């Protein structure tokens, strides 16, 4: 089947990309000025400890052997080595933190799509009206306001002024429901930017589709306006919107780092920032890898969805 063979091909390309991403991550440690082990442990560290760390990181091997060791460990065992901080496997620490980040990303995406579609469709249908202008103002502002500042504004307004939400985000000490409540504010904050992009794309895509001849055909058949818009037009208009949401998922993932920092959420993003300040290089590598793995996976899903939505491509 055409769709199946496309899925296989697309996943294959994804695997190739993951290979490349790992190679870049492997190379990245070469950026460290000087000896990474020395920098990680500090100038005053015991030479034996440094030698041990160099050995653990494979820095004492020739470069091609380092590469093979790194790739085989990662690909076979998902092993990026031990964290300097507490000698736990870096991947385990990542997995412990991941649920927060994924929840944040999923909620954020869902809210963004909701806002985006709603405002986009509204603006397109009420073109050049006050509503349209308000939506466009929202789009421009939402696109420009940095997510971390928006998070802080939310805290100032909703948490401190109105006292609707607690200042801090979720953490393991609270119940599931309480944590969900504490996710609301960060999720909305992270959703605004992408919601704005989605709204703009939905609006222009829908306006373009509404100009197509097949929409005129639907109207000429006597189809009522809601049916023309929601059945005939929206399905076509969504095709480019899906792509845009996929591309901007990267920005959303980047946003989680900042939002976790603002709300004190113990997710993958804060782990990455902590690791940077602790010079915990294996931990940085593991965390960055999982971030791009998420991004690559979402893009694969989006591409497949795109093929599913557009029969012109599906059956090629």
């Amino acid at each position, binding site marked *: 089947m055409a769709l199946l063979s496309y899925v296989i091909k697309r996943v294959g390309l994804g695997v190739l990309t993951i290979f490349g991403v790992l190679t870049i991550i492997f190379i990245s440690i070469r950026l460290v000025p000087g000896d990474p082990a020395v920098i990680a442990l500090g100038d005053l560290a015991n030479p034996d400890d440094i030698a041990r760390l160099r050995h653990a990181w494979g820095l004492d091997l020739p470069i091609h052997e380092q590469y093979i060791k790194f790739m085989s460990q990662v690909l076979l065992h998902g092993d990026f080595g031990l964290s300097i901080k507490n000698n736990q496997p870096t991947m385990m620490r990542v997995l412990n933190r991941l649920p927060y980040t994924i929840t944040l990303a999923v909620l954020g995406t869902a809210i963004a799509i909701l806002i985006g579609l709603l405002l986009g469709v509204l603006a397109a249908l009420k073109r050049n009206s006050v509503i349209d202008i308000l939506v466009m103002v929202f789009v421009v502002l939402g696109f420009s306001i940095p997510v971390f500042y928006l998070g802080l504004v939310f805290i100032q307004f909703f948490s401190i002024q109105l006292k609707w939400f607690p200042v801090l985000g979720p953490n393991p000490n609270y119940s599931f429901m309480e944590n969900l409540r504490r996710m609301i504010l960060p999720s909305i904050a992270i959703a605004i930017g992408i919601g704005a992009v989605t709204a703009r794309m939905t609006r222009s895509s829908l306006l373009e589709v509404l*100009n197509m*001849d097949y929409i005129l055909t639907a109207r000429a058949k*006597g189809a009522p306006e809601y049916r023309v818009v929601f059945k005939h037009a929206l399905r*076509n208009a969504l095709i480019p919107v899906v792509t845009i949401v996929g591309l901007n998922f990267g920005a959303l993932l980047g946003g989680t780092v900042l939002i976790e920092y603002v709300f004190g959420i113990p997710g993958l993003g804060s782990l990455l920032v902590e690791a940077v300040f602790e010079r915990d290089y294996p931990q940085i590598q593991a965390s960055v890898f999982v971030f791009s793995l998420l991004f690559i996976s979402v893009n694969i899903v989006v591409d497949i969805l795109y093929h599913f939505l557009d029969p*012109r491509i599906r059956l090629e």
Partner: protein
Amino acid sequence: MTHPLLDVRNLKTYFYLRRGVVKAVDGVSFRLNRGEALGIVGESGSGKTMTALSILRLVPYPGKIVGGEIIFKGRDLLKLTEKEMRHIRGKEISLIFQDPQNSLNPVFTVGWQVGEAIELHSEGKPLWDRIIEKVINILRGVGIPRVEDRVNDYPHEFSGGQKQRIMIGMSISNNPDIIIADEPTTALDVTIQAQIIDLLKDLRSRYNSSIILIAHNMGLVSELCDNVAVMYAGRIVEYGSIEEIFNDPLHPYTRMLLRCIPRTDIDVDKLESIPGEPPDPVNPPSGCRFHPRCPYAKEECKRDPIYIENIDGHMAVCELYRR
């Protein structure tokens, strides 16, 4: 005289652009009788497509019908509510477009799209299986081969000619009184064009529908129509029977238009060409809009109102005939 099926009176459709107002249709009047095929010809920008869309009240943004009457079976379509108008569209008056590549929705199967046209105008809620049965019959009737296997295919799996057949099938699915065909063959090759014309002729005799054929190709109109309206810059400049228009054109524009077509059947040394370019739609010339390009133009041609010559229904808007 009996009432015509469709009586368009002084129709005006304007587009409000930043640059100014484009009077795309500016006082167009014509009648269409039951069973008649009327051709509306003109060059691009003459307003022929907007006239067609105005009849169905489907003028796109930022256009607006600003005046006139469209009397269809005794009712003014411009006075109907949107809901009443929906019952006219696709049921009593249907539409076929120029570019079959874009006139079918790419994300739905052709069977569903034709079926929708039937479903929208059915009493109650007929079973979808029954509708598909009907769709298959219709599509077979317009010459789609192996219909049973193909109703669930998507538009891009059909050739341009087949798509236009499907569009035609959709347009006749509710046995309408009028089919408006807007340049239905412009995007097609000549041999396919001939097939589509045959199909339209055949349907016309089978269903006794009236046809409004919008075209820039004079040959096409002469092949299919009984009467012709010639449009220039938003107005009808001449109206008459097919023989009158082709054998004895009154308006200089019609005459020159006919003579500037390179013919396949006769050799000419030099084509007659109309000097100049069509007018700027925002600032059309005063009086007769053709006067800046007309070799017979007189001082009076620049003034409104203009003279209308009418001999037994052969009508031309031209000062030449004022005695």
